[in-house]
C-alpha cells in the first residue's frame, strides 16, 4: 500500500473539490432516498406524496443546475479524478433533462393504465429519480467506467419502468425483450471497453494514455473496439442497426414510460456522445474521418429506416416509435457536423423534438383514455368530438414534421444550417447526402404524420357510444407544451441564445 500513499491526499482533495460540482446529483440521490423512505413508510398509497416530493425535488435540482451555469467555462473541466466532465453543454442538457423529467413525472399519474396499476406508482417515482441521476451522470461522464456505469444505471431503471405495469401482458413482454436486448448489447459494449482498456491501459478519455495508445495500435482493432462500444451507446440512442427493439418496447410499455424513453435518455446520450468526441476533436493527430463517416451513414440509414417504416404503421404508439427513430437520425446530422453550431443546433433540435413528442405521447394517452383509441382507424372523427385535443395534436405533428411557425421547423433550419456550414468548409459528400436524405424523409414523414389529422378530422366516425370524459390536467399541460412549441417557432433566438 505504500506505493499509493503519496497520491492519497491529492486524490481526496480532488474528491472534495468535486463535491461542489456535484451538488445537483447529490440532491438527486438524497431525493431518491427520501422517496424510497416515504414509499416504505406510507406504504403503497403514498403515490401522490411521492409524486409531489419527486417533482418538488426535481425543481430544486433544476435550480441547482441553473446555478451551475455560473461556475462553468465553455470548454469545461474534469473532476472526480477525471471521472466526470462539466461544461456548458452538459449543464444545459442536465437542465433540459430535469425540465422534461418534471413534465413526465407529472404525466405518469395521468395515464389511466398506470393509475389503475394495483401496485401503485410510488416505486416508479423512486426508479425514475434513480434513472434521472443516471442520466445526469451520463451527461457528464468522460471516463469509460463512469460511462458504462451510468448507461447501465439508466438501462436497468428503464427495464424496470417498462416492466413496471406487471398486470399487463404486453408490458411484461416488452420488459423481457428490453432486458435481454439491453443486457446483451451492454455486454458487447463492455467487451469493447475492455478492448479499449487493453489497447491503452487507461480508462480515461480526456487525459492519460488513451488517445496516444490508440494511435499506436492497429487501426482495424481500434475501430472494432469503437464499433462494439457504439453498440451500447446506439442501444440507448436507438439508431440503426441498434433500433430493432424500439417499436416493440414503445408499444408495449405504458405510454408515459414510452414518452420517457423516447426523450430524456436520447438527450443524455447525445450529450455523452459530445463528451466522448471532445477529446478526439481536440487531439491534434487524430483523424475524425471514421467517426464522421460512421455517424453520417448511421444518420442516413436511420432516417430512412425510421421514417419509411413508420409509413405503414397503424398503431399510433408504434408509429411514434418509428418517427422517434427517424428524428434520432436527423439529430445525428447535427452531431456529424462536428462544430459549435452543430452543438447548438442539436440541443435546440432536441428541445423542439422532445417537447413535441412528449405532447404527442400525452395526446396518445388522452385519446386512449377518452375513446379507447389505440389505432389510427379508431381515431376516426374524434377531432370533432374533442376539438381542442385534435387541434393540439395537429400542431404538434406539424412541429414534428418541421413546418414553419413551430419549434420543429426552426430546429430543422438550424440543423440544416449547421450541416451546411460544415459542408461549406469541407465539401464532404456525406454531409450533403445527409441533408438531402433529411429533406426527403421530411416529406415522407408528413406522409404518416398526416394520417392522424386525416383520421381525426377528414373521416367521420360511425361509433357514438363509449366516450369517456378525459383528464383535464393532461389536456392543459399539452396546451402549455403546444404554446411553448409555437412560441419557439416565432422566437427561437430566446432559447438559441442560451444554448
Amino acid at each position, binding site marked *: *500500500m505504500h506505493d*499509493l500513499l503519496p*497520491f*492519497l491526499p491529492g*486524490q*481526496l482533495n480532488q*474528491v472534495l473539490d*468535486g463535491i461542489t460540482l456535484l451538488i445537483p446529483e447529490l440532491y438527486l*440521490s438524497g431525493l*431518491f432516498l427520501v422517496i*424510497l423512505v416515504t*414509499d416504505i413508510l406510507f406504504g403503497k398509497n403514498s403515490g401522490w406524496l411521492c409524486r409531489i416530493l419527486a417533482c418538488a425535488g426535481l425543481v430544486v435540482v433544476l435550480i441547482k443546475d441553473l446555478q451551475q451555469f455560473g461556475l462553468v467555462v465553455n470548454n469545461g473541466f474534469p473532476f*472526480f*479524478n477525471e*471521472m*466526470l466532465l462539466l461544461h456548458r453543454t452538459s449543464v444545459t442538457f442536465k437542465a433540459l433533462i430535469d425540465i422534461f423529467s418534471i413534465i413526465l413525472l407529472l404525466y405518469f399519474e395521468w395515464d389511466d393504465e398506470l393509475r389503475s396499476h*394495483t*401496485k401503485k406508482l410510488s*416505486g416508479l417515482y*423512486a*426508479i425514475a429519480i*434513480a434513472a434521472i*441521476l*443516471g442520466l445526469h*451522470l451520463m451527461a457528464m461522464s468522460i471516463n469509460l*467506467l*463512469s460511462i458504462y*456505469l*451510468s448507461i*447501465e*444505471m439508466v438501462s*436497468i*431503471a428503464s*427495464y*424496470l419502468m417498462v*416492466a*413496471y405495469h*406487471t*398486470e399487463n401482458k404486453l408490458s411484461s413482454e416488452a*420488459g423481457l425483450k428490453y432486458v435481454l436486448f439491453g443486457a446483451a448489447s451492454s455486454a458487447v459494449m463492455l467487451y469493447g471497453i475492455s478492448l479499449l482498456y*487493453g*489497447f*491503452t*491501459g*487507461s480508462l480515461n478519455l480526456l487525459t492519460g*494514455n488513451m488517445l*496516444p*495508445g490508440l494511435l*499506436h*495500435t*492497429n487501426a*482495424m*482493432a481500434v475501430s*472494432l473496439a469503437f464499433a462494439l462500444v457504439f453498440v451500447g451507446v446506439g442501444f440507448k440512442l436507438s439508431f440503426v442497426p441498434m433500433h430493432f427493439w424500439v417499436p416493440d418496447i414503445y408499444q408495449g410499455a405504458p405510454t408515459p414510460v414510452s414518452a420517457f424513453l423516447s426523450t430524456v435518455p436520447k438527450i443524455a446520450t447525445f450529450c455523452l456522445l459530445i463528451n466522448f468526441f471532445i477529446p478526439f476533436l481536440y487531439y491534434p493527430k487524430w483523424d475524425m474521418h471514421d467517426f464522421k463517416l460512421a455517424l453520417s451513414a448511421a444518420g442516413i440509414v436511420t432516417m430512412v429506416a425510421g421514417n419509411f417504416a413508420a409509413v405503414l404503421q397503424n398503431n399510433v404508439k408504434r408509429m411514434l416509435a418509428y418517427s422517434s427513430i427517424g428524428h434520432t437520425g436527423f439529430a445525428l446530422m447535427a452531431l456529424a457536423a462536428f462544430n459549435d453550431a452543430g452543438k447548438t443546433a442539436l440541443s435546440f433540435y432536441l428541445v423542439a423534438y422532445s417537447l413535441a413528442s412528449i405532447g404527442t405521447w400525452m395526446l396518445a394517452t388522452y385519446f386512449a383514455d377518452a375513446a379507447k383509441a389505440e389505432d389510427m382507424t379508431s381515431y376516426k372523427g374524434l377531432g370533432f368530438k374533442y376539438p381542442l385535443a385534435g387541434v393540439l395534436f395537429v400542431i404538434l405533428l406539424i412541429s414534428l414534421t418541421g413546418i414553419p411557425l413551430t419549434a420543429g421547423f426552426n430546429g430543422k433550419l438550424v440543423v440544416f444550417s449547421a450541416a451546411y456550414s460544415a459542408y461549406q468548409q469541407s465539401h464532404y459528400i456525406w454531409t450533403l447526402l445527409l441533408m438531402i436524405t433529411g429533406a426527403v424523409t421530411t416529406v415522407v414523414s408528413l406522409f404518416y404524420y398526416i394520417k392522424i389529422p386525416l383520421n381525426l378530422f377528414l373521416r367521420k366516425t360511425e361509433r357514438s357510444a363509449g366516450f369517456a370524459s378525459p383528464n383535464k390536467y393532461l389536456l392543459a399541460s399539452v396546451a402549455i407544451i403546444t404554446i411553448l412549441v409555437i412560441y419557439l417557432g416565432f422566437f427561437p433566438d430566446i432559447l438559441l441564445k442560451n444554448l
Partner: protein
Amino acid sequence: MTMVKALFYLMGFIAVASGLYVAASRNLVRSVFMFFVTLMALAGLYVLASADFVAITQIVVYVGGILVLIIFAFMLSGRESLAGLQQQESRFISINKLSAVLLAALFFILMLNILLKTDPDHLQWVQKAVSEKNMVKSGDATVNNLGINLMSHYLLPFEVVSILLLMALVGAAHISRKEKSL
C-alpha cells in the same frame, strides 16, 4: 512457470469446453451446472492473472448469488415449462442455429485476426509498464491497493453503484411482488 502455463491452459480449456457444452446441451440442469463449472474455471484464470480478489468476488457473487438466483428462477418457473422446452428444443429446426454458428464463428475469426494484428504483449503501454515495474507480480496482495483505489480514485462509481443496487432491489422486488388485490 511451465506449471502455471499448464494450469492456465487447463483452466482455459475447461472454461471454453464447458461453455461449449452449455451451448450444445439440451438439458437445462446440466447446462446450468456446466455454467457453474465455467465460472469456477474463470475464477481460476483470474487467479492466474494474479487478481485474487477478483477471483474471490467472482466466486462469491456469481456462484453464490447469480447462480443461486437462476436456479431459484428455474424452480419458480416450474418443471412443465422445462419439459416443454426440451422437446420444443429438439424439434427446433437448426437453420437458425446454423446462422448463429456462422455469426459466432465469424466474430471469433475477426477477433483472432485482430489479436494477431495487435500482438498485445508488445503494446506500447504494456512495455512501458513492464519497464516501469508497474505490473502486479504473482506474489503480492492486491487487496489493500484495491481498497485504497476504491475509496479514493473510484469513489464516485462506488457510491453510484450503491444507489444502482438499491434501485435494482426496489424494482425487482416490486415486479416480483404478488399483488394482494388479485
